[in-house]
């Protein structure tokens, strides 16, 4: 009993209650917990055997080692399998339930059997299949493949076949145990590293996205500041210049021609500066969707596809949309926000973005095939939806969000087209 309780406590402390084995710390924590718990079990067992006179003093090290390694090998196979498959059975099942998943299971079983039943130095032939599992099927596929390999190995050894049975009797058990431990440890760590790599590339993409947004916000802030300070001052300068010119004219024509020229130069320069400022502010405000809403969203979609694997397709007219740059920018932000929700919450395989130019409006629609959500319920902390609502209101857009549990989500914004 003691080792079960200790093991459970250690597991909880070292890897947490809902481990995913997607971090190498969780894998090492689990290995440590299993090793300590089984050491207790082996010690208690050895002492009771010694007390019962079943074994003698010289047998102690070997007896303890066999007990401990056997339990550890079992633990390393069973504990992750149960943790992963029992805590999120539906998710685990979804990862395996594909043609490739079926092929993996067949291949692992076949190669593990080849390693055991075919005479020859083929013991480690199962590794490529295990690597395949780690790279493509996450913790669900990895733990399952390890369990299949262990099962086949134990069955073979029990049926008195395989490379380990042919070894001297003393080594037989040890070899089987070490084989299972090596397979479990290696594959679990490999899977954790693959998951960590994927997580860090997601984090990097997210950071890049944020950086891009921050840069855009910064440009908008600069545009606002220029508008609030420099543009106002230039407008005032133009007015003062005109006032001075008028005074000069009304005070008689004899006054200084140089002064008149200077004032006229100030007027021209101010006008030129205003034009330049206007162009600059325009540029700063609109460069996010420089090439148009459709191509901006298409570029964003392809970056999502490459970082998350979610298939995002974008359909829309190639010609310029009949909406203001600012509206276009807000629509882009809404599309980006809706896609971020798809990535973060929907667990979707694919999403579709449609931009439709209608008679008097432009429609943006983002739909996905994810798990959906309850639109009526409040979603504290989901600023995405709030931000979409705010942006849609700012451009007089009509926002519709429809979703049904298990049947995906559709976000639509329709904005009035320009009269032009």
């Amino acid at each position, binding site marked *: 009993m003691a080792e079960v309780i200790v093991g459970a406590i250690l597991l909880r402390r070292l890897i947490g209650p809902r481990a995913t084995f997607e971090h190498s710390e969780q894998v090492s924590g689990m290995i440590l917990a299993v090793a300590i718990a089984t050491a207790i079990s082996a010690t208690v067992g050895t002492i009771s055997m010694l007390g019962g006179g079943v074994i003698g003093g010289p047998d102690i090290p070997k007896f303890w080692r066999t007990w401990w390694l056997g339990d550890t090998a079992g633990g390393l196979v069973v504990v992750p399998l149960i943790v992963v498959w029992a805590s999120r059975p539906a998710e685990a099942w979804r990862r395996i339930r594909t043609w490739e998943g079926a092929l993996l299971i067949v291949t692992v079983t076949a190669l593990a059997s080849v390693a055991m039943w075919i005479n020859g130095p083929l013991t480690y032939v199962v590794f490529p299949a295990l690597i395949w599992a780690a790279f493509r099927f996450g913790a669900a596929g990895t733990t399952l493949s390890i369990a299949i390999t262990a099962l086949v190995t134990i069955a073979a050894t029990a049926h008195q076949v395989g490379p380990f049975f042919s070894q001297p009797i003393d080594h037989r058990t040890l070899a089987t145990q070490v084989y299972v431990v090596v397979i479990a440890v290696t594959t679990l760590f490999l899977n954790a590293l693959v998951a960590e790599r994927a997580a860090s590339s997601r984090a990097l993409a997210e950071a890049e996205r944020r950086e891009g947004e921050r840069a855009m916000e910064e440009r908008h802030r600069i545009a606002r500041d220029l508008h609030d300070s420099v*543009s*106002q001052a230039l407008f005032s300068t*133009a007015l003062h210049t*005109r006032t001075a010119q008028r005074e000069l004219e009304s005070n008689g024509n004899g006054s200084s021609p140089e002064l008149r020229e200077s004032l006229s130069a100030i007027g021209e320069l101010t006008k030129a500066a205003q034009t330049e400022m206007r162009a600059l502010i325009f540029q700063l405000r609109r460069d996010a969707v420089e090439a148009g809403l459709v191509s901006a969203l298409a570029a964003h979609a392809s970056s999502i596809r490459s970082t998350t694997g979610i298939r995002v397709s974008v359909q829309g007219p190639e010609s310029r949309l009949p909406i203001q740059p600012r509206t276009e920018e807000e629509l882009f932000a809404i599309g980006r926000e809706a896609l971020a929700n798809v990535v973060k919450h929907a667990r979707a395989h694919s999403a579709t973005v449609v931009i439709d130019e209608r008679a008097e409006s432009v429609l943006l629609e983002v739909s996905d095939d994810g798990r959906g959500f309850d639109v009526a319920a409040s979603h504290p902390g989901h600023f995405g939806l709030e931000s979409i609502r705010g942006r849609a209101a700012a451009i007089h857009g009509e926002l519709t969000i429809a979703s049904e549990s298990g049947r995906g989500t559709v976000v639509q914004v329709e904005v009035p087209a*320009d009269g032009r």
Partner: protein
Amino acid sequence: MVAEAERIRVVVVDDHAVVRSGLLAFLEGESDLEVVGAAEGGAEALELLAGLDAEGRRPDVILMDLQMVPVDGIESTRRIRERYDDVEVVALTSFGEPERVQRAVEAGASGYLLKDADADEVAAAIRAAHRGELQLDPAIARRLMSTLQESGSPAGLTARELDVVALIGEGRANKEIALQLGIGERTARTHVSNILRKLGLTSRTQLALWAVRERVVRVETGG
């Protein structure tokens, strides 16, 4: 020099001190304009107007910056037009803000100026607003047209009011309307405010668009 009584009384509302100083300097030098006050925000503008009204110096035209906090130019325009329907508002705005201009016109502004307009255009816009003329970009006119849907029908208007509507639809100023109908300019103004109230509209601009859409044309009664 234009007589005191005939000068157009102007109030400038802008939260940028530099802009106020430029506008004041320029407008004060125009012989037919009289700047009766300046305010740096919507609330101050309403206070100023109440004071001027009490002195019997209600302004004719207000130059209103739209981008102000906390009470922005649009809300200020609405409040001013609610209280003083004979005060015309000309919105001062930046380029690339058609939504804002649209909302300002809906709130009752009769025209708008970009903040990099020439000084002479500023003066011209004030005079045009005073004459009751409209200045609208076609894009904004179309946007406005689409928001006019729930306004009333011509049924509730008197024959004289329908004449006024028709003339406004032709883009006529109050003075021309008065001349055409053989009434005083003040009477023409009163008709305009009555019509706006009956139709639930806030500005001449909306009224003109409404007239065009409802195809209100003047029926020549002869004589």
